[in-house]
């Protein structure tokens, strides 16, 4: 009896409290976001304005609301900030140039190989990001086949090395983020109704005009999503610069890493993280406004 009663009351609680239902369903997500996003962000903000305790040991800081940390952290590392955005932009543009034809071919021209080609695009994810980057270090290194071949063809000199260079860092980032560019592009190209292309042809547009006036505008959401998914992680990336770069190609991620782990200067690391986050947010907002794709998500 008691059980039945309890069950009934639960049913009525559910049916009666329909208004609260969305909140109940949202709760896991909200709790997750609060614990793993809001709290760490608050902690980061709190840390970013601390200063060392006078006479304290390495790594001991106290809250003094020292907002000058932001100015100092930025001014001391503006070179790496600039480099991060430059490399991220280059990697994004390169990835777009490679991914667009690839996605176009898979979506519109691949026929029965479509699924197979898609698997190939995603396949690199089956191995660790780190391992793949280290593999590139081997391939482009003195022990790999690329350097001796290029030297044999007199394309590069005896002293030139492909690793530990800006080229290697940008190439590594382009490679690592390529699937993030390809998949959204594929999704939006695949959705294009073939009849719009036929209609364009019927109206005497040639291939180039059809692409410029129909395909490209219709694939813009994919372009915007792909560039964002590439640019944002690329700007904060430090793995490629650490493994494929040299001391003169360090990015802001490397500075944050060394401030945190090597110098044990948590306030600077926190201030830099915040500055990077805000800079990316501003750039992305401007970009989305300019590209006018509100139906992005």
């Amino acid at each position: 009896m008691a059980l039945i009663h309890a069950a009934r009351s639960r049913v009525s609680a559910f049916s009666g409290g329909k208004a609260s239902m969305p909140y109940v369903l949202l709760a896991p997500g909200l709790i997750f976001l609060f614990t793993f996003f809001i709290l760490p962000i608050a902690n980061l903000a709190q840390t970013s304005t601390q200063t060392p305790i006078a006479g304290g040991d390495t790594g001991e800081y106290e809250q003094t609301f020292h907002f000058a940390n932001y100015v100092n952290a930025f001014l001391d590392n503006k070179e790496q900030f600039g480099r991060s955005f430059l490399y991220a932009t280059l990697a994004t543009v390169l990835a777009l140039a490679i991914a667009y034809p690839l996605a176009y071919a898979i979506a519109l021209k691949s026929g029965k190989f479509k699924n197979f080609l898609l698997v190939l695009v995603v396949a690199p994810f089956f191995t660790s990001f780190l391992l793949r980057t280290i593999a590139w270090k081997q391939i482009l290194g003195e022990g790999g086949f690329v350097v001796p071949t290029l030297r044999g063809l007199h394309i590069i000199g005896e002293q030139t090395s492909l690793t530990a260079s800006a080229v290697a860092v940008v190439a590594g980032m382009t490679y690592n983020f390529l699937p993030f560019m390809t998949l959204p592009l594929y999704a939006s190209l695949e959705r294009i109704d073939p009849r719009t292309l036929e209609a364009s042809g019927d109206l005497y547009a040639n291939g180039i005009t059809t692409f410029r006036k129909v395909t490209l505008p219709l694939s813009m959401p994919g372009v915007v999503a792909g560039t964002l998914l590439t640019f944002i992680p690329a700007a904060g990336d430090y793995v490629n610069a650490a493994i494929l770069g040299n001391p003169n190609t360090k990015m802001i991620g490397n500075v944050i890493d060394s401030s945190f782990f090597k110098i044990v200067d948590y306030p600077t690391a926190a201030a830099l993280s915040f500055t990077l986050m805000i800079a990316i947010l501003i750039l992305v907002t401007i970009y989305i406004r300019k590209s006018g794709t509100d139906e992005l998500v």
Partner: protein
Amino acid sequence: MAKKDSLSPETQSLIKTAISRRGLIAGVGAVGAAGALAACGSGGSGDSASGASDTVRWANWTLYLDVDASGKVYPSIEEFTQQTGIKVDYREDINDNDEFYGKVQGQLKLGKDIGYDIVTPTDWMAARWIRLGYTKEFDTANIPNAVNVLDSLADVSFDPGRARSLPYQGIMAGLGWNTAKVPKGLHTLDDLFAPANKGKITVLSELRDTMGIIMLYQGVDITNFNEAQYMNAVDFLAKKISDGWIRGVKGNEYKEDLISGDATAVIGWSGDMFQLALENEGKFDFAIPDSGGTFSNDNFLIPSVAPAESKANAEKLINYYYEPAVAAQVAAYVNYVTPVKGAQAEMEKIDPTLAKSEYIFPSEATQSRLKVFRALTPAEETSFTTAFQKAAGN
């Protein structure tokens, strides 16, 4: 090898403040990272397993223990397990002192297990652990072999009477090179920065070794110097880096660059270079620069957060590595300076040539060419490391 550390021996008490929200969150990341590492381990690494009294977890540097040809079996550890029944979960998890400290310090502060019962940081970092109360005092009854420590190392300013630390290996930092690419070898920093090596040089991310060698080259006494002299040496390094001479400022992974041929000349560690030479048929060599090299020790420590049950196991392991025969066995492989008395006599039995090696048993003359970087105050540590990292592009 006299220690010149002038650190205050006072041990700061462990920060016992209640777990603040900030502390908790700072810890979460570190715990997560360590948890991920632990998950990668091959069993016996879970929290429950760590409590078992038959395991000891040891975090060490890479290429720092005798290993067989397969690279998976450590003969001295096997022997220890046979003798005592204690299993050793051995991990080459230390690549760089700062990096390792950065990974575990959140948990140390919170008093949470860091996943290791023995760690082996370098002198200055061991000093920091001891100063902050992050180590356990040894139970001397479990380490009778501690009397075998070399007289010159028996007492250090950061740990009077060696109550909480014992040296594991002594490290010389100097110049290393690829004998095929640098046939004449390296004797000075001018040789290192010769045009043929441009862009193929790596230096150590260990500030005291790289900066120490540069300062010695500039004629500065590294046991007693001022900030201006240090910053002057940093400028030298920064110039070499911005001019493209140096391809990397690295921890232990500089060895990979040497093996692959990407680096041909390095500021590196003695034992590494001899092991590489051994494994690659004399392709590499090492020398202390004419202007002098640096010397330091890595030290056995038992973290304050190690479970009580594993402490005795850790002590037994330390005791085992202080047996002269075992110390000789390890030294014969790692080629670092052994801190154990009687190891030289034992080495005669293993390999008489090695018993005469200046790099395992340095003579007075060799020792006089090695200097110990002076201790830095916490404030100096921060500003000097910042300047060094900045030069390294960070």
